[in-house]
């Protein structure tokens, strides 16, 4: 049971005073840094030279997949290792945690919106260097398709439609392709994951086929994130 003696309440008061002190400090610091509105030098370099150096009109994608592509490799590895750890920690039985029957309206609407979501996810991935979106966003949209199928139709139906071995294959091949795309930069005589710097033809900025290896990395990361997130969800929902 909950310990309600004088010692426990003393600890609670101690914690509350600590929170008040921390909060005061935090508000003071944030108040002072809110006056700091100078654009840093590196950001103004990105804004003024980003399009001609990366070929991507969307500057956020240009930063993620060209200037800081190594960060993005680490980010993709975090999802890969989270999916692997969850599949290792959690049971592999098929009984789902949620067992609820819906009316026919839910099933019909789900089967109506799934194609729309697939198109939206693929669009966000492929046009990631031209419009808002990108590999991570589109991958999350793609991952909601098996998640919605699992919630409505049950986990055995989903695993029959989208087998887990297929998803882990996509995830692993995606990680490998990201590394291969990185080593292509070295083969072209530049650094790891170099796109604009390595002298690859960038194309005309603003067209679909442009921006060097950025669209390839977008597609790789999109497939990888979609497979990884749906693996994580399916691992979390199983029960012994």
């Amino acid at each position, binding site marked *: 049971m909950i310990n309600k003696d004088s010692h426990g309440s003393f600890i609670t008061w101690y914690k509350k005073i600590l929170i008040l002190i921390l909060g005061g400090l935090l508000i003071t610091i944030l108040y002072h840094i809110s006056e700091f509105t100078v654009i840093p030098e590196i950001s103004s370099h990105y*804004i003024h030279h980003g399009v001609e150096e990366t070929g991507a*009109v969307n*500057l*956020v994608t240009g930063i993620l997949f060209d200037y800081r592509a190594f960060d993005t490799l680490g980010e993709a590895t*975090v999802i890969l290792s989270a999916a692997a750890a969850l599949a290792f920690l959690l049971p592999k039985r098929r009984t789902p945690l949620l067992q609820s029957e819906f009316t026919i309206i839910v099933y019909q609407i789900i089967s109506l919106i799934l194609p729309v979501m697939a198109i939206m996810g693929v669009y966000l991935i492929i046009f990631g260097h031209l419009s*808002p979106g990108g590999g991570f966003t589109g991958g999350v949209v793609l991952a909601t398709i098996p998640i919605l199928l699992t919630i409505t139709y049950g986990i055995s139906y989903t695993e029959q439609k989208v087998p887990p071995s297929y998803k882990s294959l996509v995830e692993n091949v995606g990680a490998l392709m990201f590394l291969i795309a990185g080593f292509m930069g070295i083969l072209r005589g530049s650094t790891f994951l170099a796109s604009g710097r390595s002298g690859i033809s960038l194309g005309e900025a603003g067209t679909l086929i442009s921006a060097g290896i950025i669209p390839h990395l977008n597609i790789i990361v999109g497939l990888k994130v979609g497979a990884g997130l749906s693996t994580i969800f399916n691992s979390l929902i199983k029960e012994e």
Partner: protein
Amino acid sequence: MLPAYITTGILIILGIYTILIKENLIKIVIGINIIESALILLLISAGFRPGAAAPILNQELEQVVDPLPQALALTAIVISASTTAFLLAIIIKIHKRYGTCSIHEIKNLRG
């Protein structure tokens, strides 16, 4: 600008309060998520410029917001989703082993 920073501070304090005071493990994970969302709000408001457009340069724009914090926020979102999933998996294991999610009861069970 200032309201966004103050909101960030209030959200971080709420998150710390949730982590330190609540005894349900799920609520502690919710507290961690509140702090992560507050940090994303801080990153986005750090790149904000009044009257500036989104950093997509497919037309001539006078001023765009800072794209670097947005890229970092994307990284933060991915990391936060992964850590949340991992914490929830550990909570499922704890609940299976001890039959409870309360940190006080788990502490009493130990000794």
